């Protein structure tokens, strides 16, 4: 039970600012963060984010687990695109032990990355529409996402968190139907993606709500470490798939989606363009999967040589960096996940003042 003093501190704040709490229980924050918003009328003066509601102590847990066990924990870090998190840890382990991953595994890993990126962007689009009030958008996005999740379920047994990518390659081979289902899905989704534009992008109300809001300059983005589509909306070219290609990304042609305006509408358009690019990457890869092994020969117990290793991967939201300090045992001495959303969040205090937020 809160006493009177605590209520006064939390609700009134210093200098008698009018503070409204967008707490973890709010339909827009989806339960994972809390903003203390200081309002002056309808305009935002400043914001204080509070995080940690979904912190599960993964880094401490990993210090007592072996590397294949860590893969299962990394799934849960960003559950909408679980493959990319797995792949980051696998790349670090493979670099450290200097293992050559077979081509088939690389192709399939890249296809799964891009499917995960599509699924996550679909969910982003429908949640974005719903938070703005276009409730129909929610159903359109989820309807199409189900197709991707069905493909995952057939090959890997679960819809969201598979832990399928293992150090050395893949855990087991894909289902024989994998390629056909993906080709059907690409044909289906190419017809549906223009519907997304018809529903939201061209709508006057939507454009008035998003254009000119939340401007972020390129210097701010670099200073705060913002990466991913949010940074690409400010003309900051930071795609790790182009700068340091991994998997099969050096064998495909795709454009990096950049926009110059730096407002919410620009970031929206970057993600829509990325969906088209993902479709074209999958199309280029799905017919050419080589037919060799799905994994390299690995020892049953993986021990990394002593030293420090760092590797970055382009997940849906930005750069995920994995930093491993190993002293030769089967568990890491210290593993640090540099997650993209940690940096992407804290730029909010810089870009929100002087906006009229309808909360």
């Amino acid at each position, binding site marked *: 039970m809160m006493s009177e003093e605590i209520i006064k501190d939390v*609700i009134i704040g210093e200098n008698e600012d009018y503070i*409204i709490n967008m707490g973890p229980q*709010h*339909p*827009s924050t989806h339960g994972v963060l809390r903003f203390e918003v200081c309002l002056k009328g*309808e305009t935002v003066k400043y914001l204080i984010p509070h995080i940690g509601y979904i912190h599960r102590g993964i880094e401490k847990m990993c210090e007592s687990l072996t590397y294949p066990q860590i893969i299962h924990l990394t799934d849960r870090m960003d559950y909408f695109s679980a493959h990319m998190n797995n792949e980051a840890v696998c790349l670090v382990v493979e670099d450290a032990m200097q293992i050559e991953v077979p081509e088939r595994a690389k192709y399939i890993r890249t296809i799964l990355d891009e499917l995960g990126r599509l699924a996550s962007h679909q969910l982003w689009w429908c949640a974005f*529409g*719903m*938070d*703005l*009030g*276009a*409730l*129909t958008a*929610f*159903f*359109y996005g989820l*309807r199409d996402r189900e197709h991707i999740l069905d493909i995952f379920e057939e090959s890997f047994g679960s819809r969201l968190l598979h832990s399928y990518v293992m150090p050395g390659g893949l855990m087991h081979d894909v289902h024989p139907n994998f390629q056909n289902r993906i080709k059907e899905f690409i044909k289906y989704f190419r017809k549906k993606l223009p519907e997304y534009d018809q*529903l*939201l992008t061209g*709508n006057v*109300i*939507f454009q*008035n*709500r998003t254009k000119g809001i939340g401007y972020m300059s390129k210097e701010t983005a670099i200073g705060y470490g913002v990466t991913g589509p949010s940074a690409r909306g400010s003309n900051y070219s930071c795609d790790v798939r182009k700068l340091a290609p991994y998997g099969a990304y050096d064998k495909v042609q795709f454009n990096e989606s950049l926009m110059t305006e730096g407002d919410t509408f620009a970031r929206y358009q970057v993600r829509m363009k990325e969906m088209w690019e993902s479709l074209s990457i999958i199309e280029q890869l799905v017919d050419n999967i080589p037919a060799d092994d799905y994994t390299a020969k690995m020892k049953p117990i993986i021990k990394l040589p002593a030293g420090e290793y760092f590797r970055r991967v382009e997940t849906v939201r930005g750069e995920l960096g994995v930093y491993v300090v190993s002293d030769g045992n089967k568990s890491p001495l210290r593993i640090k996940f540099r997650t993209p959303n940690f940096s992407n969040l804290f730029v909010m205090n810089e870009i929100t003042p002087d906006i*009229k937020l*309808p*909360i």
Partner: protein
Amino acid sequence: MNTNMSSNIYDFSTLTGAIHTWLSGMMSSGLVIFTEMVLVGLAFLLMYALLGLFLVYFERKVCAFIQNRVGPNRVGLYGIFQTIADLIKLLMKELIPIRKSDKLLFNLAPYIVIICSFLALAALPYAKGLQAIDFNIGVFYVMAVSSLSVIGILLAGWSSNSKYSLIGAMRSGAQIVSYELSVGLSLLAIVVFTGSMQLSTIVESQANGWWIFKGHIPAFISFIVFLVASTAEINRGPFDLAEAESELTAGFHTEYSGIKFAFFFLAEYMNMFIVSALGATVFLGGWMPFHVGNWEGFNQIMDYIPSVVWFFSKTFFIILIIMWFKWTFPRLRIDQLLTLEWKYLLPISLFNILLIAFTVMMGWHF
């Protein structure tokens, strides 16, 4: 002008006259009036309840259709008892009193909102001869009474003692008060055409064609302004900032639960019905059937469809349009909402009034 054209339409005043004669035979005249008032009150209560239930079900089915899914289909055949199940659930919920809220105002607010929508319902013409109160200031009365509901909303927000509710109520109050101007001006357009504010006169003047066709361009502009402004009046559709879920967690009715929340919910749907019925009466001809010029045979057939059916189908047509808005468009922000009214709709309405006055003077309407 209207005697031979609407002579085939069944006149409910024969029915009401018969009931009156039957009652007068049994009791003194004072008691007859009292009994009739009780009967009319009961009829309205019943209609309110049934319409409310039906409208909630209708909304869920329309929304499901737009979103490419089925909607309620388990409780009863095609899910028609879904609303009754929801109502039972709401009635069984605990009424949570808020510490430090103003108890009298907190409990009073839902009742004010419901009473206002009742008052407005009473003045609408449902069929030929079936109108409870036929004031000579009909349009003005309905507008005035539905404006009273803003008091209920402000009271609800203020007495909840919560920041979210207060902000929601302030925004809602500003929105309703602004959009009343546009609604009034667009209704005024047809009053100028007809020359009278009495609702039954307005309907009878549409015997040779609905005002939206007779008044061509100016009436059409008025209709569009009326649609947009009345959606904003009832806090619906793209203008539901004050009470939407992902903004402000339900705004002015955040702190209400159980039957009080059901009152707000029901009053919102009935307001939608009232506003649509008003639009149907004034622009689309009320209970008048659809006649085309000199096609006597066609007109005879149209006359045989009862006027009640005409009235309700036109009302539900407008309700369908309003629901369509809500499920397709994202929301407007509060300052964009008010800009739309003060900088766009109001000047258009004012210009339209001038245009209509000119048209009537020159006799350029049908």
